[in-house]
């Protein structure tokens, strides 16, 4: 038995900031000071505050240390773990108050959060099934198998109001009901979509890394509800830690008999296998995902028939996203009313967002539906760095749109986001400040969809390419006002005609920036200016002769030899040679270089 638990984050964020080395140093130092039998080291999943990693939490005091380096370990061990004196300098800054230290739950980052899907992330060791069971794991599976009929399970999910967390927001219970007919007479499948591909989104990865058993348990519950005996988790190969932990979790669950034949002695059989995706964005689309599991090239097919009727290997299939699965066991245990008490009228529960871009606290946050964007950005996110002004937030990745500053007080839920031309998407939330060019952003996402279009249907394959070309023309300063009309027309054409969700939503970033930032497009076209000073072709770098001291620093650093001038005399930038890399602007000590 241990008298203290030291939790160190082993998520991808903290692993890349060095948490493995911290764990190693900690184990060594505990041995040195003969504390290895008194203090347990637990490698957990993501705590959400990736910006401040590596994260370490020491219980029973619940002290939250941030940015811990291996060099700090001897001090933590001899001061805190041995003598009980908290190492103040390493305590997460927002937890430090004049009276000492406050609970991490009182800090701005965690205060407004409500962790349901992430409840075990950062709390348990994901590679230890006993820890999951210790927090009530597999209790929900036991409950449905021994106390509930399959139809009662589906009714419970329906009553909870849970909607798909993968993006489209389709009611989960309905999906299950559609696939529930003819139980026991036909082969059916349960699939988990863990092919998280939106740029900047990483909530599914964090659940898989921090609490893999919750997904297994939820899939088994769904298997019971619709009468399926086999499940597949389709996870991207680019998530090595998640894949590893899933493998361990499946092995442990089989060993305990929580997967396999005759679970809990009830005669119910269910097993799960992994399928690794090779990195195609389109495989996150449900029909393409199933085609890929079948061993074919990952391309979508028209719907109907829907997967609930004719899915994987032609059999009825339900497919839910990782975060959706993570909510299921809690709904079974605490009841649909508990779940429906959180959120807004039509969007129940919580949503996990991956907060990124121009924001102080990058990381993972889980908030009740209906929380305003302002709360997320100003309170949880800690505002925008360097005192810049908030311009817009992008949700839904390449399928979504932007929320401009004028809508910052809108409560975030599925329907509100659609009404302002964006969408929930899987939960990427990228914050942009005044230095961001919205035409450039639209171009960035279009570049992504052009790369990722599978090529099966023409509207997407050719249409997105033409959209991108028009956008490039505009950012090159060669656009005309007619181009703006053409752009919009083409957007609607692609939306109406593309085969799958990828193509149908690909024009959203363009449409939403056109809707809220048309003046920026016009500035690029008419004035040949980029108001945010991002689009290189529309910028010229100049030297103010009154400020230039002729120190030659810029000329010596210019990679294109575009700056000329004699020593101690004002220099000049040659417009023809300048490649607009910005090196001179960064190097000049006198603020003599400017762009316009």
């Amino acid at each position, binding site marked *: 038995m241990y*008298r203290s638990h030291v939790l160190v984050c082993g998520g991808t964020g903290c692993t890349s900031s060095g948490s493995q080395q911290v764990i190693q140093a900690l184990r060594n130092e505990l041995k040195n000071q003969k504390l290895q039998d008194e203090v347990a080291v637990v490698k957990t999943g993501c705590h959400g505050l990736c910006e401040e990693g590596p994260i370490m939490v020491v219980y029973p005091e619940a002290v939250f240390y941030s940015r811990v380096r291996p060099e700090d370990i001897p001090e933590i061990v001899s001061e805190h773990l041995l003598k009980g004196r908290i190492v103040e300098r390493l305590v997460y800054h927002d937890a430090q108050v004049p009276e000492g230290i406050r609970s991490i739950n009182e800090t701005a980052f965690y205060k407004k959060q409500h962790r349901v899907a992430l409840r075990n992330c950062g709390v348990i060791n994901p590679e230890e099934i006993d820890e999951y069971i210790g927090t009530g794991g597999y209790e929900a599976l036991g409950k449905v198998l021994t106390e509930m009929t399959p139809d009662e399970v589906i009714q419970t999910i329906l009553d909870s109001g849970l909607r798909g967390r993968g993006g489209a927001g389709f009611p989960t219970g309905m999906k299950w009901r559609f696939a529930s007919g003819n139980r026991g007479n036909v082969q059916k499948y349960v699939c988990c979509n863990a092919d998280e591909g939106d740029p900047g989104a990483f909530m599914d990865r964090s659940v898989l890394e921090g609490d893999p058993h919750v997904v297994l348990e939820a899939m088994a519950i769904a298997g019971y509800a619709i009468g399926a005996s086999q499940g597949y988790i389709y996870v991207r190969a680019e998530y090595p830690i998640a894949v590893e932990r899933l493998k361990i979790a499946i092995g442990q669950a089989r060993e305990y008999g929580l997967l396999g034949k005759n679970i809990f002695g009830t005669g119910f059989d269910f097993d799960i296998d992994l399928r690794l995706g090779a990195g195609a964005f389109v495989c996150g689309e449900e029909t393409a995902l199933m085609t890929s599991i079948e061993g074919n090239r990952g391309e979508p097919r028209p719907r109907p028939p829907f997967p609930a009727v004719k899915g994987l290997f032609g059999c009825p299939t339900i497919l839910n996203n990782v975060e959706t699965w993570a909510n299921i066991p809690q709904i079974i245990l605490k009841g649909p009313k508990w779940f429906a008490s959180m959120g807004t009228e039509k969007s129940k529960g919580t949503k996990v967002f991956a907060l990124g871009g121009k924001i102080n606290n990058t990381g993972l946050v889980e908030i009740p539906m209906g929380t305003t964007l302002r709360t997320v950005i100003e309170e949880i996110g800690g505002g925008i760095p360097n005192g810049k002004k908030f311009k817009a937030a992008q949700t839904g990745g390449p399928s979504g749109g932007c929320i401009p500053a004028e809508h910052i007080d809108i409560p975030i839920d599925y329907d509100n986001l659609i009404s302002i031309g964006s969408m929930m998407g899987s939960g990427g939330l990228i914050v942009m400040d005044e230095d961001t060019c919205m035409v450039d952003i639209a171009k960035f996402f279009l570049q992504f969809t052009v790369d990722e279009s599978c090529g099966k249907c023409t509207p997407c394959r050719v249409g997105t390419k033409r959209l991108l070309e028009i956008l490039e023309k505009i950012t090159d300063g060669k656009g005309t006002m007619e181009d703006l009309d053409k752009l919009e027309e083409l957007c609607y054409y692609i939306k109406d005609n593309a085969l799958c969700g990828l193509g149908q939503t690909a024009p959203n970033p363009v449409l939403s920036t056109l809707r809220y930032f048309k003046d920026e497009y016009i500035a690029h076209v008419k004035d040949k200016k980029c108001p945010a000073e991002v689009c290189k072709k529309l910028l010229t770098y100049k030297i103010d002769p009154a400020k230039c001291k002729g120190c030659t620093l810029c000329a010596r650093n210019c990679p294109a030899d575009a700056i000329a001038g004699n020593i101690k005399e004002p220099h000049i930038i040659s417009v023809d040679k300048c490649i607009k890399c910005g090196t001179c602007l960064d190097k000049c000590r006198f603020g003599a270089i400017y762009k316009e």
Partner: protein
Amino acid sequence: MKSLEELRAIREKMNGNIGFRSESSDDTRIVVGMATCGIASGARPVLKTLSDEVQKRGLKHVKVCQTGCIGLCQYEPIVEIYEPGKEKVTYVKVNPEKAIDILEQHIVRGQAIDKYMLHVNENM
């Protein structure tokens, strides 16, 4: 595993372990002085005993923590009990056996043990 009972047995076993990782501030705190003076007079086994016993007995809402030197080095090892809404109780010259008495009588049954407490002596 073939039954829910087996699952619950694992859960019970892990409960002390995971319940440990709580953030609640309404818990009873058992604080052991673990400065150099405390450690020198044997506070480490006292701390370990208290922590193990709390988990073994599955006592909920009880935390065992360390603290630094209270200033009464001659009375170490010192154990202080903070219960929400009650006056702090200080036990002195504690050893593992006394620690178990304190847990059984004070924490479980709610009866403070007078003979282990610090008594202010005029001639000190």
